[in-house]
């Protein structure tokens, strides 16, 4: 598969440190919720760098949205956050991934567990769930540092009755917060995710350390390893 032209149709802030890029991709064949694309940047001297980004938009939507969280000192993300403008052309390869995906036809229950920007593929799944009128039971446990870091407020604010969203704050919580705080250890997970008895399909996405800790704790709680799908984003050094 060769690199396709992606025209930036809009960029808008998604949180203080993240931007949503809305792309019109030449020859786009559609995608499945949970898939990602590779974006490639080429400097004037021919040097290239590519990074993977999950697709945030639902398959039913005509344009492809990505949500990029800035990584301090990073090679690619600061450029995508600050320099890319409407009308710019990027190079994109995808959609990619036949494994970390959910379609309405797969049904539920589905347990989604996100750390930080790891919520992005779940925004696609939840929007797909809503637009498909799915009655699958879905739960999202979304771990973030501070309330203002939340991504996808648009999608998360209008989920249907079959979807339950739980936030967990590791640094600062909103005033009067009664929900989970701190790390997602086995105790927090036991309380806030679908137990193994319900045989959920579980998806875990976020920084590598987060994903590995959560997946390990889920197995400890009795979840079958093959029922857990992971997408590791890499880690801050």
């Amino acid at each position, binding site marked *: 598969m060769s690199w396709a032209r992606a025209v930036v149709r809009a960029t808008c802030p998604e949180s203080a440190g993240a931007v949503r890029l809305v792309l019109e991709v030449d020859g786009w064949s559609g995608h499945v919720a949970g898939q*990602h694309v*590779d974006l490639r940047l080429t400097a004037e001297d*021919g040097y290239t760098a590519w990074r993977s980004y999950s697709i945030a938009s639902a398959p039913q939507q005509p344009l492809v949205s990505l949500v990029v969280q800035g990584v301090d000192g990073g090679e690619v993300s600061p450029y995508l956050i600050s320099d890319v403008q409407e009308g710019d052309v990027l190079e994109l390869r995808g959609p990619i*991934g036949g494994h970390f995906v959910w379609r309405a036809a797969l049904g539920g229950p589905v347990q989604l567990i996100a750390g930080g920007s790891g919520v992005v593929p779940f925004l696609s799944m939840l929007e797909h769930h809503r637009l498909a009128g799915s009655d699958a039971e879905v739960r999202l446990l979304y771990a973030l540092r501070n309330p203002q870091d939340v991504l996808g407020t648009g999608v998360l604010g209008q989920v249907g009755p079959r979807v339950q969203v739980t936030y967990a704050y590791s640094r600062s919580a909103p005033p009067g917060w009664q929900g989970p705080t701190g790390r997602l250890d086995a105790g927090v997970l036991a309380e806030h995710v679908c137990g193994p008895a319900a045989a959920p399909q579980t998806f875990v996405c976020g920084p590598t350390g987060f994903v590995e800790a959560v997946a390990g704790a889920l197995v400890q709680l009795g979840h079958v390893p093959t029922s857990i799908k992971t997408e590791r984003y890499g*880690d801050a050094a």
Partner: protein
Amino acid sequence: MTSIDTPDRRLDGNALAGPLLELFTIDLSAAMATCVHCDGTAPLGEQQLYADAPALVLRCRDCTGVLLRYSADSHSTGIATVRADLSGLRLLVAHVPAAGASR
């Protein structure tokens, strides 16, 4: 020196599916990969990818043995040289559209 326990840039094999499209015509993330070292079998997308080495190195999630090494150097000439060492894969099983069918 990065040990294999360093979490940095340890990714899921899923992230290798894009680069492999330079060489293969289908997305291999759901293809079942069998390890030469331990015979463990799992979807390629669930194996462990080490993305910091000079090449992308895919390791078996069961025994951490090397399944596949892959590199592509891209030049502004429009020609890239791809190097793939597949010697750690005993078998790769993929479901592809039958000849003539479109996807």
